[in-house]
């Protein structure tokens, strides 16, 4: 059995009258890769953004239900949303670099959370860039604008930047969809190496990718949670007809 880290309870999300997520209840296991799969527009990204409350930024959105992280409801009253987001790193679909140098991008999170010491920042930057497999490629040009990197490198920089705030959870929103196959493999490999230390929630619509990475699978279909369970069970022997149809490629 997996030990739960995030516990989603009766989560409902409405967006301007649309019921985008319907009564989602599922536990996300700790220090494993959980893949959220499902066809486009089924609410995968919305679910992910509900986990770090980035969904708050969307106009006209209403959320009900609980999301417990380490037993604390992140939708509870009087909670500091910045602390929640610090715990939950996010890798977006398209690399979303900040308008600054490679170094400053990586150090951004640490700086806003109060690290001023130059030496400490240097160490964090080096450590995180090493973990994301970028250090050797950029160590001589840390002051260069981050936007000069290739798109695959940019996504690894985003990973490093997320790691620098020492999160417990990494939320990945189809992080390889904009990348070439080699860079995509690179990111996947990185995630497999670090999953021993982080709870990773990975949104994907590529089944083969889910098979390669996932320990646990959550299948969403039009805002409903159809089925969830250990990857080998869901991906090889699903019990729900809709999951079976999706895996066979009959619905997408």
């Amino acid at each position, binding site marked *: 059995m997996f030990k739960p880290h995030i516990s989603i309870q009766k989560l409902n999300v409405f967006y301007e009258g649309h019921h985008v997520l319907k009564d989602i209840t599922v536990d996300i296991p700790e220090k494993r890769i959980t893949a959220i799969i499902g066809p486009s527009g089924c609410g995968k990204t919305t679910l992910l953004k509900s986990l*770090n409350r980035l969904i708050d*930024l969307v*106009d006209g959105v209403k959320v009900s239900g609980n999301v417990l992280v380490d037993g604390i409801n992140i939708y509870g009253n009087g909670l500091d949303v910045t602390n929640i987001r*610090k715990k939950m790193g996010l890798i977006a679909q398209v690399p979303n670099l900040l308008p600054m140098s490679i170094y400053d991008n990586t150090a*951004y999170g640490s700086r806003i959370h109060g690290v001023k010491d130059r030496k400490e920042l240097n160490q964090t930057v080096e450590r995180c860039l090493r973990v994301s497999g970028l250090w050797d490629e950029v160590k001589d040009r840390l002051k260069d604008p981050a936007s000069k990197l290739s798109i695959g490198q940019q996504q690894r920089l*985003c990973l490093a*930047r997320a790691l620098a705030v020492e999160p417990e959870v990494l939320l990945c929103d189809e992080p390889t969809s904009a990348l070439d196959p080699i860079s995509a493999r690179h990111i996947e490999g990185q995630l497999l190496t670090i999953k021993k230390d982080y709870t990773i929630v990975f949104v994907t619509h590529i089944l083969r990718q889910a098979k390669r990475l996932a320990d646990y699978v959550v299948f969403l279909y039009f805002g409903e949670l159809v089925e969830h369970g250990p990857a080998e069970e869901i991906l090889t022997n699903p019990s729900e007809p809709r999951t079976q149809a999706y895996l066979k490629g009959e619905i997408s």
Partner: protein
Amino acid sequence: MDKRKLEENFFKGLMIASTIIIVGSLLSVLVVVLFRGAPALSISMLAQTPKGGYYLGKEGGILNAIVGSLYLAGGATAIAFIISLPTTLYLNEYAYRSKLASFTRQSLDVLWSVPSIIYGVFGFTIMIYLSIRASLLGGIMALTLLELPIMIRAMDEVMKMVPLKLKEASYALGATKLETTLNVIARQALPGVVMAILLALGRAIGDAASVLFTAGYTDNIPRSLFDPAASLPLAVFFQLGTPFPEVQQRAYASGFILLVIVLSLSVASRLLTRRFMRYVIK
């Protein structure tokens, strides 16, 4: 096929023609000003204040107006910037779709097209109320009012262009709104902000009507905020108004100096922004 090619060439020709008209008229203004003013251009024109009988075309220069204009426009631009930046950030990041924001935008768009003499009169009214004489301070106040709508709306448009994904990136790392605004949005928008400042400065330094009552005119260089201040546009205005050809020549020379000042500010700010441009996410 032929028709499409014809269309393509026709509109291309149209665009080139419009560009030539624009650049051509600008150049002809420059050439006329330079040719008419050249005989009067001299070091003393730049380095001296008017000497006795200046309006009769005798001695001295227009240093009073050069310095006055720089003080007036510089002061107004600095104050306008200090007010504009927080306003713009508030409109975009804190109150984007609120009624207050749309009302503010609407009012600023109207104010943009208010003739500058109105700002002059309005500034003058306030000065009477505060019992300030025509002075550098009064001129700066009127020019600040003139600059605000331009600067805020120009910055506003730039800030609107900052992609949502940049803000998301910052928020996702646990940044607060203020941190995101100052570290990410302001930085990304910086080159555009500099252009907005320049736009407002250009309007202020070339404006005559709003400083006519508020700053007054003087042959001296202002020594304090409460001294009257001369300005280049008014210098041009007064010199052109005289019946003496020599003095009218000086008006063109003053105009040329004004053009050179604006041009060098523009070039300088472009060079400055190039540094920041490196980091902007395209």
